[in-house]
């Protein structure tokens, strides 16, 4: 079920909430939590019930291992070493992810290297597997290190499956989440939270339905184009995708956090105007923040600790490797690895720059960061490395420059050797394409983000009007099915 579907907004969300708080009101806390768990599993099974056993087994397995690790620490009884159990469980989780996500990539790579012709398995990626796997890996490591205090299966299952975050994050930490389901004041419907939650939810829906989906056709046409793209459409293709991805994913995250608030559950804010960043370090503090935290804690730190000596150089190597792995986590393909590598290089350069205490005017810093990120997303979106290079060639002007026919009358443009014609036909665009791109650029750079806006919201008439306007506008425009980009990861 999609957040941007009528069945979700008009039926699923209100029904789950009303029943949940009604049960809580009757002091049937456990039943209420069971209801929320069942609702989340129903939400998950809506696409394909085939994968329900998979997520259930994953939860039970990790809960049992986590419990065993905590128990062994408490009692000190050790038939098998705790470390071996942890390693076994990590291999099981990563193995599961490899099987469903990376098998075909490995087979394809093996075929290319050895010249063999092994058939591809064409396994369909179960939704949310990347997310629920890493959430649980963090839980296992924490259990091993003695940080898991709570051992309630219902809370654990609810923490993993709670439907706002299940499919594409924000990536949660058990320590922040599990106690929230038991806090007394969270069990009563809170009108303020409901109001703010609705506000954030509809801001997110607006970002997805009205903004991101407007850019989708142009980005798709550009990236699928078989013709070489000239300068302007090539840039508009890459910018369209950058805006599509940002508004789609941050819109999704806003909706998730908003729904969380409606249930009095606080989920972490995932985006903080990342396209305003004036450096790659700054970018990753603002983009997919919950992933940055996960990578720093559970990837970068262990890699760094594995080095015998912690120096500036080893830190940079650890950063680069972490970003490479993060790229591969996003998808099974060389394009994602290159994307991760580009961000790794960007971060390394930024850290060296910072250490040397070099300075740069903030506009130039922003300009470089924005374009670097924009170019990196060309790899992120392209199906093949060749496809990405193809588009980048267009962006570099190697396929020439074509402008709109109406500009042909301007003498110096005509003399500059440019061609004139249907300049945006190759990306199925029109004047709206460039006007929207410029507007979106101004919005992401100069406007407040949704979390900042919600922080200013008061229970006043004009805010309510704004809420109703964006809600109805989004609902009326929501006539087509359009999945969130991060569901494929």
């Amino acid at each position, binding site marked *: 079920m999609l957040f941007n579907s009528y069945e979700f907004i008009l039926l699923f969300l209100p029904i789950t909430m009303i029943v949940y708080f009604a049960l809580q009101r009757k002091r049937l806390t456990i039943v209420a939590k069971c209801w929320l768990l069942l609702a989340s599993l129903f939400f998950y099974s809506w696409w394909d019930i085939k994968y329900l056993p998979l997520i259930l087994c994953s939860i039970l397995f990790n809960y049992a291992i986590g419990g065993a690790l905590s128990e062994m620490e408490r009692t000190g009884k050790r038939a098998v070493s705790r470390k071996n159990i942890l390693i076994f469980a990590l291999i099981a989780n990563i193995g599961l992810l490899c099987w469903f996500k990376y098998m075909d990539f490995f087979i394809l790579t093996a075929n290319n290297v050895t010249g063999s012709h092994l058939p591809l398995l064409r396994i369909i990626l179960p939704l949310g597997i990347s997310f629920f796997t890493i959430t649980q890996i*963090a839980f296992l*490591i*924490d259990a091993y*290190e*003695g*940080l898991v205090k709570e051992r309630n299966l219902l809370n654990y299952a609810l923490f993993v499956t709670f439907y706002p975050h299940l499919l594409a994050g924000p990536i949660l*930490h058990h*320590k922040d989440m599990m106690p929230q389901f038991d806090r007394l004041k969270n069990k009563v419907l809170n009108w303020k939270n409901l109001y703010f939650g609705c506000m954030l939810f509809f801001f997110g829906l607006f970002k997805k339905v009205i903004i991101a989906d407007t850019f989708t056709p142009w980005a798709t046409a550009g990236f699928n184009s078989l013709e070489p793209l000239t300068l302007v459409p090539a840039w508009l293709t890459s910018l369209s995708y950058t805006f599509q991805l940002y508004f789609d994913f941050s819109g999704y995250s806003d909706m998730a956090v908003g729904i969380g608030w409606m249930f009095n559950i606080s989920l972490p804010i995932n985006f903080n105007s990342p396209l305003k960043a004036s450096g790659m*370090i700054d970018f990753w503090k603002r983009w997919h923040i919950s992933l940055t*935290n996960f990578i*720093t*804690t*559970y990837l*970068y*730190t*262990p890699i*760094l600790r594995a080095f015998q000596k*912690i120096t*500036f150089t080893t*830190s940079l190597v650890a*950063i680069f490797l972490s970003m490479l792995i993060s790229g591969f986590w996003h998808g099974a393909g060389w394009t994602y690895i290159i994307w991760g590598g580009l961000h790794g290089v960007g971060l390394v350069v930024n*850290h060296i720059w*910072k250490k040397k205490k070099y300075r740069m005017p903030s506009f130039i810093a922003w300009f470089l960061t924005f374009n670097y990120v924009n170019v990196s997303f060309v790899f992120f979106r392209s199906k093949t490395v060749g496809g990405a290079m193809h588009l980048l060639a267009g962006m570099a002007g190697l396929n020439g420059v074509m402008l709109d026919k109406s500009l042909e009358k301007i003498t110096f443009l005509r003399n500059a050797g440019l061609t004139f014609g249907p300049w945006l036909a190759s990306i199925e665009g029109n004047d709206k394409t460039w006007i929207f791109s410029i507007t979106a650029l101004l919005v992401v750079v100069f406007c407040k983000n949704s979390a900042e806006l919600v922080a200013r919201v008061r229970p006043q008439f004009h805010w309510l009007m704004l809420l109703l306007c964006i809600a109805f506008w989004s609902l009326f425009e929501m006539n087509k099915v359009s999945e969130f980009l991060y569901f494929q990861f």
Partner: protein
Amino acid sequence: MLTIDMLESVFREVFDDENISLSRATTANDIDDWDSLTHMNLIIALELRFKIKFALGELQSLKNVGEMQDIINKKLFRN
């Protein structure tokens, strides 16, 4: 009992800045040089100074001086 002053001396050493002054409310956002990289140096320095070991899951909470003080105190007290 670990005091803010004791933390302050570690911070001044790691960030090489004698002007750093801490309160329980100080976070990574308040000190320019406190990023993911220097955070690790800080962690290692704290581990060495107080002869403790942090778990991975604690590292995010340590980006806030108040919580840092509590976590270290808990470890020192337990030992």
